């Protein structure tokens, strides 16, 4: 069994196309959408092989003892990484959707309660809120509207006004019900589409001031947002995917619940053998075993951090990605003759994802077919693909800049999009005549 980590004894390749050596992409594919599903570096894939071997060498030893001890160690490392005050506040879940569902389903919902989401909330989480509202006792879903272009300060201002209006709603209900309902707000730290960093810490603070629960969807945060310090930011709940920007193997996310809120999490999903009424008193234990799964992705989080340390660490990685996102995004906007979504706000929303408008006329249909057409023409035909989304009257591209990316990739993408959009305009028309089929507002959102 090769000692994979001997690779770390030599210097890493430089950032840019040479870094593809550390990944296992199809050589003909230009990966500009790391943000959706992440990418597993080859050294990390190698580093976890010994754990898979252990799982088969003695399945009982591994599942009853070894994996549990290993994962406890990894949790310690991750807790430190995100600035949690205690390791006991951090547990692993398979993905962010799972973590957020665990939180939202744990609340004991009552009539008059309010779930606040946003038009930019990730699609499955919006559906989760809808589902909870669909079943008795039907808490109400209220939506905060966030439309780009905007600025951090405008968002904060609007959010404060919005949360105060939620409180007014609550006060009215409280009078009728004779008790004070709760308000639970789902806040993205980084929106999926557009790929945009929000002033989430300020939004969390406002929630606290207004007695509103803050549930932060940080799916895109870890590995992209620098210097996380959750003890300081102090959200009520926080979830992130390690398999997105942190290079862990898929099926690895963190659920952060500060000690003061662990009583809210009544049970894991699936329920653990360790469940007992009064929940939360054994929070960590309840998340240590929830049925047999492949536990190696949780262990891989630590191997991923080793790889990132070898590259130079978080700042080195993210400084490069951020620079390429900006330079590449500008080049792309130039080629397309369009704009970057936050160029008038000093790119305050842009970390490693950049959003550029598609060169369509403003009348262009928002139908799902357009997204599917881009998928055929770019992902399948031209082997290059960013995420597409429709927002506030326009089609946009979301590009992920990564350590293997170079500005040239954005140039290739720009040409591909110019050609593809022309083809699509011919096929579907510009929206002034009805050429598109299907429901206008059924637009598939992206990860």
């Amino acid at each position, binding site marked *: 069994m090769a000692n994979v*980590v001997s690779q770390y004894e030599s210097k890493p390749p430089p950032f840019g196309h040479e870094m593809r050596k550390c*990944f*296992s*992409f*199809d050589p*003909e*594919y230009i*990966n500009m*959408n790391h943000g959706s*599903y992440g*990418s597993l570096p080859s050294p990390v894939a190698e*580093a976890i092989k010994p754990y898979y*071997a*252990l799982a088969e060498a*003695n*399945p*009982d*030893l*591994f*599942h009853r*003892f*070894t994996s*549990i*001890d290993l994962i406890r*160690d990894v949790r310690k490392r991750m807790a430190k990484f995100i600035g949690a005050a205690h390791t006991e506040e951090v547990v692993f879940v*398979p*993905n962010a*959707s*799972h973590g*957020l*569902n665990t939180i939202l389903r744990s609340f004991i919902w009552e009539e008059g309660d309010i779930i606040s989401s946003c038009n930019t909330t990730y*699609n*499955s989480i919006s559906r989760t809120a*809808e*589902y909870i509202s*669909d*079943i008795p006792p039907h808490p109400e879903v209220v939506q905060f509207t966030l439309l780009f272009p905007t600025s951090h300060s405008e968002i904060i201002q609007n959010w404060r006004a919005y949360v105060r209006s939620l409180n007014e709603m609550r006060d009215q209900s409280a009078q009728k019900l004779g008790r004070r309902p709760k308000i639970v707000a789902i806040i993205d730290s980084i929106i999926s589409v557009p790929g945009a960093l929000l002033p989430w810490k300020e939004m969390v603070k406002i929630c606290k001031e207004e007695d509103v629960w803050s549930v932060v969807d940080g799916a895109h945060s870890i590995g992209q947002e620098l210097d996380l310090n959750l003890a300081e930011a102090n959200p009520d709940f926080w979830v992130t995917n390690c398999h997105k920007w942190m290079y862990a*193997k*898929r*099926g690895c996310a963190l659920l952060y619940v500060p000690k003061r809120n662990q009583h809210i999490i009544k*049970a894991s*999903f*699936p*329920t*653990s*053998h*360790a469940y007992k*009424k009064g929940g939360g008193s054994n929070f960590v*234990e309840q998340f240590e*075993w*929830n*049925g*047999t*799964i*492949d536990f190696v992705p949780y*262990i891989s989080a630590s*191997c991923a951090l080793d790889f990132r340390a070898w590259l130079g660490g978080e700042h080195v990685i993210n400084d490069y990605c951020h620079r390429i996102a900006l330079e590449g995004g500008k080049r792309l906007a130039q080629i397309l003759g369009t704009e970057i979504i936050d160029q008038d706000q000093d790119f305050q929303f842009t970390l490693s994802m950049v959003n550029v408008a598609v060169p369509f006329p403003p009348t262009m249909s928002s139908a799902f077919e357009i997204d599917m057409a881009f998928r055929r023409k770019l*992902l*399948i035909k031209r*082997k290059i693909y960013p995420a597409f989304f429709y927002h506030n009257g326009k089609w946009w591209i979301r590009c992920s800049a990564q350590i293997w990316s170079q500005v040239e990739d954005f140039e290739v993408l720009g040409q591909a999009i110019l050609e593809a959009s022309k083809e699509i305009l011919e096929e579907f028309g510009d929206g002034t005549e009805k050429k598109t089929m299907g429901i206008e507002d059924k637009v598939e959102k992206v990860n």
Partner: protein
Amino acid sequence: MSNTQSIAPVPIDQIVKATNILQQSSAPKFGHELLPYFSFKQGFLNLNNGSYGALPKVVTEACNELMAWQEENTDFYYRIGFIPPLIGVREQLAQLVGASDVDELVMVPNASTGLGVVLRNFLWQCGDTIIRCNTTYATVYKTIQYIHDVTPGLEISEFQLLFPTTRQAILDGWQKHITNVKANAPQGQKIVAVIDSVVANPAAAMPWKEMVKICKDVGIWTIIDGAHSVGQEDLHLADCGADFFVSNCHKWLNTKRGAAFLWMPKESQKIMLTTIPTSASYVTPGPDRPETNIVSQFQYNGTIDYTTYLSVHVALQWREWVGGEAAIHQYCNNLAKKGGALLAQTMSTKVMDPNGEFTMAMVNVTLPFPSDFQAQYDASVGTALSNKLLARNMYAVTYYHNSLWWTRVSAQIWNELSDFEILGNALVTICSEIVSEHKSANVPQNCKAVSFSSYLEQPLKGAVALDSNNGIGAPRPVTSTKVTLVGYHTQLASIRP
């Protein structure tokens, strides 16, 4: 391989080359000759397939190829690529288990998830009843507990199952229990029964179809925990009468861990509103919601590694090559019965089920503790048994049931009769050690399981920091000796699926 040229999906057989070797050679006989085809550490005596299954080397290699495919172009894989092979796997499983239609069967990560998502989809009300057994598997037992705790006025009715017993006695008891529950339940409120097809501890193949009929005759919902079923017994779900059936593929069907299926006939799908987590394709119930929406919800509800599900295809190829379902079942069932008898003889104890009416590939035998020792339950005994077995490079499950300590032994195609004798001799020594340690109130600190780093040819470097004991060593801390006997242990060390 370049699969991004065409839109046409690539079948698994074009991606996976590892299984080519199966066409080039014929399988060895069942027994120790099969050990090289698995990845157990040299000398590890695996008599516990039932808990975590085992991955044949060919399937491991195929999974590596499937994982590499996933990384080539993740957008292609997650938006397009995984779908046709996943449907293919569902079709294969639907055929294997005798479902009427592929759209009655979806994949879930494990039985606990499958059962949990079904139980949590019911809209529970005051006056509803959930029926479970004292032997219901821990996560399911506690899911029911949780539902009870958050639903005011919901009743749990627990059916006591104590072995040894007979199938007829169980059915008589079950009939009485159901009649009683039905008589006492408020009119118009639902009653849902969770029934094991195969109880985990003790290992017992239940007369579950008869139990389903008893429930169905009086309008009680039936959810079958068939975690141990697929790969251990033939299934014909289309006419089983149950409302839901869940089984783990990674136990007896040789798939990668994290693969199970949930079977729900069309009628049952009406109560299924959502997956957990909820999918982007969730639609509010109502006239706009398509009929098979819940099936499409299960296709994608959060990013996971689909390799576990896709490995079903390769596992089935391997099982066909090694002898086929019927031959595998026959070998394992015969070995379990003969092995159990030999084990009991070696330890001078008894087989729980001497006439074999509950025995498929797992057998239960009493442990050789003196009767006064047996009578007084102590959780530390379970920990000690577990650790001492691992220290001897072997494993079988041990558990306490009906005032006796037992071992549950899995017979698999790599096992032979002699394995049972080796286990028996080890257990005789182990049990006598435990008795004398208990007498002297001396649970030894050096009762260590083998250090996992000794499995590696070279030590891990730069990975997770290992403690000075190399990660594992000391037995789990002993908890209170006053443990309420509920048919399962509360200590993490004693988890036994």
